[in-house]
Structure formats: C-alpha cells, structure tokens
C-alpha cells in the first residue's frame, strides 16, 4: 500500500487534529491525452503596429495632403537647385526685377509683364493715329519701345515726378530737418530752413506781374507749411531824386534776402489797413502781411533790395481754417505792390525801372513732419497775357537741374513736382523684352574675333587671303567705296544690293544658334597703318538678340521672377529651402538622439540622478531661444555651424522631457516587471521593452522640431542676423523685404513656400501623432 502512495499531505485543522491525506496516482486520468491543442488561426491578416499606424494615417485626408505637399517641396528643394540652368552665384545686373513668367508674353497672366499706369509720355513721340487718338510712348531710356505692349492712348494726366514732358503743377517742398524743440521761439532761432536757390528774373524793359500761389491741403494730411518768400528786386530811380521812405520807420527791416522772422503778427488778427489786394481772388481771406519797407541801400550800387516775408506760422491751427479751401493762402501781386497800391507803397514804376528781381523760398521745419508746401507756378504776366510762364517746377527749368544736387539748396528736404500736367499712358511692360529682346547695336572687330574663336562664325568673314581677295566684310565695303557717293549706276546698285544681301544672309543663315547677331544692317571699316602694315577694324551695325548676348540659348523664363541681383527666385528660394530643411533635419537628428538618451536616463533610473539632470534642464530651458541664438551668433559669427550649435543647445529639452515621461509610464508596467523578474538587463529592458512602446509618441512630437527650426532660422534672419554667405528661406525673405511695395512677387513667392512648408509639416505631424497614438486624436 505504501508503494501506491504518490503523495502524502499532512495538515492540522482548527481543533489541532492532524490529518493525513494520501493521493494515489491511479485515481487520476489524463483528459484529452491524444488531442493536440493549437491557437486558432486568425481569419484576418496579421498586422504590425507600423502597418496599423500607416493605415490610420492614410485615412486622415488632410495629413495625406500635407505629406504630399511636403514631398513635392522636398523633391523641389533637392532637384531644382541642380536642374535649374540659372546661376545664382554671380550677380546679373541686366536681368534684375523680371516678373514671374510661365505663359507666353501677352497671355495677360503670369507672363512676365507688368501693367503700368500713368507713365509720363515723351512729348516728342506724341502723334495722332488713324483712329483720331493720340498715342505717345514713354521715355525710351526707361521703357524701350520693344518692351511696350498694349499701349493706351495718351491722355492728359498728372505726374508727381519731374520729367522733361511735365509742365505746370506745383512745387512740393518738404523740409525734413528735425525740430530741436517744440517751443516756438527756439524753433524760430534754431530751425534749419530749407532754402531754395535764388532765382533771377530778368525784367529789363518789361512790365511784369508776378503771382505766386501757395496752396494748402491738396492732399489729405498735407498742410501748408511754414514758409517765407523773399522777393528782392532792384530799382533804379529814373529821376535823381530818391523817394523818401515814409511811414513805419520803427520796424527795422531786413533789406537783402536774409529772412528774419519779421512777420510775427498772426494773420488771423488781420491788419485793418490792408484791404484785399487781389480782385481776382476775392476769397483770399487774408492777404497776410507783406511787410514792405523800401530801403535804399546806397552800397548796393543803386540797387534797392526789398524783401517780402510771409508770416511764419508755426502753429498748425493758424492755417486750420483755410486748409479746407484749397485756394491761395497768400497771393503776392508784384505789380500791385510795386505800384504802391498797398500799404502806401511809394515806389512808382513810372519813376523807377526794375531790371532785376530775385526770388527765394524758405521753408521751416514743421512739427508735423508730413507737412509740405505746395507752390503753384510762379507766373510772370505781361499785362493780360502770360508771356513766359516761369514755372519753378517746369522740369527743364528748375527741378531737374536742382533736385539732383542738394547742395544747391542750402538744406536738405524733398523737392518734387506735384500734379504736373503731362500726357500719360498705360501700357503693359514686358520686363523680359528689355534684357532679352532684339535690339540695334554695334559689333566691333574684337567681338567678331571672339565669335570666330567661339566657332560661331566662319573665319572667312575677317581674314583676307594673301592673294588680295576680300573678306566677306570687305566685299560689301569695297563696292560701296567704289561708287563713292552720288547716284550709283544700276550695276553698282545691284552689286551693293547683292552683296548686302549676301552679308545679311550670311549672318541669318548661320546655323550656329549661339550667335547673337540676328541681322546686319550696315558695316563701317576703319583702316590703321603702322609699320607699313595696314589693318582694318570693322563695326557692324546689326540687330542683336539680347538673350544670346547674355549667353542663353533660348529665351529664359523665370517662373518666380528675378530679384534685385538678377537671381532666379525659384532657384534661390528652393536653394534656401534646402538649406533650411537640411538645418532642420540635422538639428532634429542631433537633438533627438541626445534628448532620447538624456530622457531615458532620467526616466529609467529616476531618483537622485533624475533630480540632478532635471535641474540642469530647468536651467537651460529658462533661457529664451532668441537670447541663446543672439549670444552664439555674436560670439561665433553667423554661419551654418553656429545655427546648429545654438539651436541644439536647448533644442533637445523637449524630446528629453517627453522621453522621461514615457519612460516613467512604461517603467513600472507589469510586462516590464515580468521581464525584470526573469532577469533582463537594463539595456534589454530599455531597448526591447520600453523604448519601442514609447517611440511612436516621442518621434511624432520630435518631427515637429523641423518646422520649428525652420521658423526660428527665418525669424533670426528676418532680424538681420541670418547667414552671411548662404541662402536660406529667412535670408531670401529678409533680403527682399524692402521690395514689399514695389515688387511684391519677391515676397509673395518665398512666403507662399514658407507657409506651405509650415502648414504641411504641421498637418503631417498631427496625422502621424494621431496614427501612432489614436487616443490623442483630435486634441490638436
């Protein structure tokens, strides 16, 4: 019986009685001993975590769209810098500011043209066409004839720039000098006036009537500024008797053009003695003060110089009432004054002749910097008719000669024409026609030799055989010389025509596509004799092809236009994008690796190590990124390496803290514990059990580091601290910032690319996160 006992169990029950239980082996049978049990096979296909995530990602349409855009941009940034034929290392001064072009010229959209409005017309080109409209071209130097398309009829318009064809208008003066203080008296003392050059009128034997009109508020925000006009003239007494100066002797006068602030009286406190002097302008409320103190200066060789100082008004409100009506603030009628009609003026033109008059305008700086003074034509009238409109703003006369040199004016400021009358036209400006179109030009021997060397021309065009046979150029020239002017005989004429035809067809028939000469219109030969040797130099008058001259084989088209250096914006932007992306990926790789290791150590080991490492993180993350970047750039210069170092210094912290949390999360899970119990090493636990689970979350948020690096780089470049020697998106954007108003496409194109890359990266990143961690879905 003892042999049959398999196991004996002993236990004591609550009443201290010991029990023994014997279990016999043959009491038990194996159930299903011969059956084999396996897992049932899945009916569906097995899937991995990655495949599952990918499937989820594909369901998110916006993320897929983001990924596709991202892919296209990435591909573009890799390919375009290599396949684009245009050079962005050397500046192309002739090819600047070409508009974006995709479609052929004339299609009206994205075709490299720019619609120009109100461009002044060169008055010499004005002509009436069959339909009765007047047409005129803009100035050739600025807009060559070949670049002008869809020219509108010329119409009368206004221009605000001094051009040779503009007439009339107002002189717009703005004093840019700063005001020292806002205290009126010190302004009067310290203000830097903008002083016009003295303009001399020759009034010999003429009876003139001078009218200067000062206009207020032509444009909103503009007010008549402080101004003084001094008119000085001489008068020679016809009689020997010098007229006495009656009246107001108390006030010391300023005889010559020096302009003291004499007119101190407020114009609103009107001088009751002054009646309206100007019957033609009855609404001139206030004739201001024309302080006329004729003083005879004996030293000035019998010249009496007299000045009229307009009242300086420093307080804006003084003019406020009159700003609304844009009429004369002040009208000086020279004749009236001279004839003594006003203020008991005693100079009588019948007794005095005036041979010379000078006029000068002084403009004080104003508190309101946007104020300006408008002066209408200064017209000299002879009786009723204006004989010679001496318009200060007549382009030929005044502005064009003086506005270029500030030195001529005693102080800097803006002097421009305002509302000058000119014929203007609208047209479509083909920006590509200027550098690349065909144009008439001369080609000299040196260039021809160059062309022969390049293999574009046959040598025969230049070389003369020793036998005395002519080169192709000589042949034509020789015949022309032969007949020597006059009416050539028909034979000669035919010969010339034939050779000319030969010459032209010689160039047109040339198979070489690179030859810039399109056709030859004439030839000139010069001969030089030295040491008994006669050599010839030729100048061809021909039509050349602009793009061939610049070394292109076909007409270039710039999809995104060119910038101020003549760089292709497409290539520049995508080269910049490549740099930015490269920077982003590199920094991502460095920061991700470092942050992962750092966070893993923190999270896995915890305790004091964690606390110490976390304090270090806290310290670093307290520094704003802009401060770190600035310090690095200032200390190490602005280059690729600096950016990497600066951004990596703090860039890893995000990854590290995320890794740390993930490690905390998975460290104490049951499966990790089980593995640890089974004796797994730390390395195995980290790399086999914790990291794979945490990876999805970590990597998806770390991917968003790339757009943030691109963003930071662009921001830094925008602040003027960008790469000095490399292109990047930020550099491209900040370089073109100044053209925001004039050439907006230079900003728009890189901006669109930048916006696209940021949006698509974010969409892509969010989609990745949702795919890897569906529980977070929707919490963007």
């Amino acid at each position, binding site marked *: 019986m003892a042999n049959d006992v398999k196991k004996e169990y002993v236990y004591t029950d609550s009443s201290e009685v010991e029990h023994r239980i014997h279990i016999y082996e043959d009491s038990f049978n194996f159930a299903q001993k011969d059956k084999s049990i396996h897992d049932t096979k899945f009916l569906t296909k097995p899937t991995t975590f990655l495949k599952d995530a990918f499937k989820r990602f594909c369901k998110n349409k916006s993320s897929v769209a983001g990924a596709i855009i991202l892919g296209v941009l990435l591909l573009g940034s890799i390919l375009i810098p290599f396949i684009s034929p245009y050079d962005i290392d050397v500046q192309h001064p002739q090819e600047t500011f070409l508009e974006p072009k995709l479609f052929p010229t004339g299609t009206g959209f994205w075709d490299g043209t720019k619609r120009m409005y109100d461009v002044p017309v060169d008055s010499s080109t004005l002509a009436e066409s069959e339909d009765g409209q007047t047409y005129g071209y803009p100035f050739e130097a600025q807009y060559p004839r070949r670049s002008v398309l869809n020219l509108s009829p010329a119409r009368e318009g206004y221009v605000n720039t001094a051009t040779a064809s503009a007439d009339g208008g107002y002189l717009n003066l703005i004093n840019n000098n700063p005001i020292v203080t806002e205290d009126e008296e010190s302004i009067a003392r310290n203000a830097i006036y903008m002083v016009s050059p003295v303009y001399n009128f020759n009034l010999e034997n003429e009876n003139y009537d001078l009218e200067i009109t000062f206009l207020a508020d032509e444009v909103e*925000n503009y007010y008549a500024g402080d101004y003084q006009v001094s008119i000085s003239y001489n008068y020679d007494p016809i009689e020997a008797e010098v007229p006495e100066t009656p009246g107001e002797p108390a006030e010391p006068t300023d005889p010559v053009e020096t302009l003291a602030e004499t007119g101190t009286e407020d114009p609103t406190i009107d001088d009751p003695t002054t009646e309206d002097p100007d019957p033609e302008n009855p609404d001139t409320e206030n004739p201001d003060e024309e302080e006329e103190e004729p003083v005879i200066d004996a030293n000035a060789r019998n010249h009496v110089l007299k000045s009229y100082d307009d009242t300086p008004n420093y307080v804006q409100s003084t003019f406020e009432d009159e700003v609304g009506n844009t009429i004369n603030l002040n009208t000086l009628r020279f004749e009236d004054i001279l004839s003594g009609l006003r203020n008991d003026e005693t100079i009588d033109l019948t007794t005095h002749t005036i041979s010379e008059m000078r006029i000068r305008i002084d403009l004080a700086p104003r*508190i*309101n*910097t*946007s104020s300006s003074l408008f002066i209408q034509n200064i017209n000299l009238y002879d009786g009723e008719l204006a004989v010679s409109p001496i318009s200060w703003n007549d382009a030929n006369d005044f502005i064009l000669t003086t506005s270029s040199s500030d030195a001529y004016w005693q102080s800097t400021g803006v002097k421009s024409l305002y509302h000058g009358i000119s014929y203007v036209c609208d047209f479509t400006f083909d920006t590509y026609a200027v550098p690349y179109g065909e144009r008439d030009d001369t080609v000299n021997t040196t260039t021809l030799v160059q062309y022969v060397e390049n293999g574009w021309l046959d040598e025969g065009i230049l070389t003369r055989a020793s036998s005395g046979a002519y080169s192709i150029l000589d042949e034509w020239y020789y015949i022309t010389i032969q007949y020597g002017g006059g009416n050539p005989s028909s034979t000669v004429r035919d010969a010339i025509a034939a050779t000319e035809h030969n010459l032209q067809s010689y160039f047109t028939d040339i198979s070489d596509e690179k030859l810039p000469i399109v056709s030859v219109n004439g030839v000139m030969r010069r001969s030089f004799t030295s040491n008994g040797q006669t050599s010839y130099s030729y100048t061809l008058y021909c039509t050349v092809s602009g793009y061939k001259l610049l070394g292109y084989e076909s007409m270039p088209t710039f999809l995104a236009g060119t910038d101020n250096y003549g760089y292709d914006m497409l290539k520049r932007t995508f080269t910049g994008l490549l740099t930015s992306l490269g920077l982003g990926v590199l920094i991502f790789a460095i920061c991700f690796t470092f942050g992962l290791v750092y966070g893993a150590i923190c*999270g896995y080991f915890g305790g004091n190590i964690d606390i110490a490492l976390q*304090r270090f993180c*806290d*310290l670093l993350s*307290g*520094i*704003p990124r*802009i*401060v770190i970047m*600035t*310090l690095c750039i*200032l*200390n190490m210069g602005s280059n690729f390496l600096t950016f990497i170092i600066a951004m990596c210094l703090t860039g890893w912290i995000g990854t590290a803290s995320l890794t740390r*949390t993930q490690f*905390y*999360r998975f*460290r*104490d899970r049951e499966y990790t514990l089980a593995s640890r119990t089974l004796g797994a090493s730390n390395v195995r636990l980290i790399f086999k059990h914790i990291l794979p689970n945490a990876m999805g979350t970590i990597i998806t948020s770390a991917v968003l580091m790339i*757009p943030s690096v691109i*963003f930071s780089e*662009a*921001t830094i470049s*925008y*602040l*003027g*601290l960008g790469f000095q020697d490399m292109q990047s998106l930020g550099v491209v*954007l900040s370089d073109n*910032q100044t053209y*925001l*108003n004039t050439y*907006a496409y230079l*900003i728009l194109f890189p*901006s669109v690319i*930048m*916006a696209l890359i*940021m*949006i698509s*990266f*974010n*969409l892509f990143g969010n989609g990745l996160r949702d795919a890897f961690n569906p529980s977070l879905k*929707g*919490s*963007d």
Partner: protein
Amino acid sequence: MGKYVIKRLVLALITAFLILSVTFMLMRLLPFQIPVGFPVDSLRYFQDQEEQGFVISFTQEMEGYGQLLWTSEGTDLFGGGAEQVYYYQKPIIEQYGNWLANVFTQWNWGTSTSIQVNVSAISIIGNRLPVSMGINIISVLISVPVGIALGIWAALKKNKPTDHIISTIVMVFISVPSFIIISLLIKWLAYDLRVLPFQWPDATSDGATKALGYVIPVVSLCFGSICGYCRFTRAELCEVMSSDYLLLARTKGLTKSQCITRHALRNAMVPIVPSILAEFIGILSGSMILENLYNIPGIGSLFVNSINAKDYNVLMVDMAIFTLISLTASVFLDISYGFIDPRIRMGAKNNG
C-alpha cells in the same frame, strides 16, 4: 503648497542668476565697443566704466593688459592740460564681480554706447517699455475672449462644418509665420488700400493717425494668440465633454447648456486660465519681428537695434528682461495651477 511656491521661486531666482551671469560673461567676450560720438563722450564713458570697475586706466601705455581700448591721446579734450589716459580692459572675472556689485548695490546695469550715448540702459528700456506694453495689452484683451469664444464654439460643434472651418483657419494661422502675416497686412492695408499708416506714427502725428497705427500691430499679434487660445480651448473642452461625469450630469437631467456652463467649461478652464495669467506677464516683452517691421519703438526693436549698433550694454539688459519675463511667466504658470484647481497638488511625490 507654500513650500512648493517658495521652492519654485528660489529655483527661478537661481536660474535667472546663472543665466544672467553666463550672458554677462559671453557679452564681455565680445570685442569691446567704444562709444560713438565725440572724444568727450568717449572719455565720459570710460571714466564711468572705470568707476564701475570694468576698465583700468594708466597715464602711459602698459604691457600685459591686453589690447589698448582707448586713449585720450591726440584729442584735445579740455583745451590741453588734462593728462593723457590709456584705458585697458580688466579680467572678465573681475568685471563680473564689479558688475554684480553695481547691479545689487546701485541698480546700475551699464550705459549705452551707441543708441543714446552715456544714457543708462535701464532708462532707455524704461522709455520703450510702455510702447510694447500698450500694444500687447490691447492685443491680449482682444485675443483672449475672441480666442476662447471661438474655441468653445468649435468644441460645441465638434466634427461639424463650423468646427472644420474654424480648425482649418486656426491651423493655417498657427503655421504661417507672423512676419508673413505682418508683411501681407502692411502690403494690403497700408500700401494698396492706403487706409492705414505703413509704419508706426511718430510722436507728432495727430490722434487719429496714432489710433490707426495700432491696427496692424494689434491685428497681427492677435492672429497668433487667438488661434492659440482657440485650439487650446477646443482641445480641453472636447476632452471634458467626452468625460463620464458629464454623461452622468446629463443622465441626472441637466440640460445641455447647464452641463456645459456648470461642469464642462469650469473644468476646461483649469489649464486655460493659468496660461492667460502667464500671457499677461508676457505683455512686457515686445514682438521683435513686428516692432522691427513696423518701426515700433518698443523693446523688441531695441533688441535688434542694439545688435546692429553693437550696443552690448543695452542688449544685455534687454536680454535680461526677456529672460526674466519668460522665467516669471513659467513660475507663475506652475504656481497658478495649484491655486485654480485645488486638486492639483504641486510638488507632491509623483511616480509619473
């Protein structure tokens, strides 16, 4: 809680101290900047620097003190008679010690070398701070309510067209860098339509122009933060709306609006309110890009100006301000969590 607050503050102070120390040393490693202007200004500056203990002067050229910084030689400063002085830089560690002493005893942060020569950096910053603050306050006051309202709206209409439209717009405006938005706003509103000034109106312009000048800066600042608040609010509210206690509240018979106002919003606001408070600290700092593009004389553009003018003393103070603001904001954010939601026990032992 009190212990946690104190701990957090002390830590922030230590962090600020260390960061500023490193910043100071790095700034001192840069080439010494001689002030622009007349020799008299330079002399005044160097005398001041000597007083502060950054440079050392001799009456003759000396060996072993590094590069000669400046000498009054050849400049007739006081009509002759004055002694020629030669200035050399002191060792950086010594300068650091003196700098600490100046800052802690006299609140002297140095003087400007080129922006406003010989004017104390603190007063330059003080002049510019109100401008930055003005713009920021307005934009915070606008963007917080608008952003939160949009977020609530989007969350209530979750996965409906309204939500999709709002979310897409938010997505776009969060992604597009601010300088692009500012550039386009300036181009469109100022250059093309001519309704707004194309740069910050100066002190002499009239009231209407000044008021219009605020539009572009405020709008461009608002875009970003409205989008941020909208996204944040939407995410929080969505999470709360799908929670069990809200379902319980509905089952108990509360109407949907009662549920939202009494339960959902209150809970969703827990993380939002601290971030609003932190943003109010952020109003002290200017937006560099915006101020630079729109010529606003705030402390953000001062940062750029001082880099370009190599005015390192002003730059140092400006950077110190940015650092302090960001530190204060983060401390404030952490602490205010505990005050707003008593359930959150800061500093309690947590295991992940």
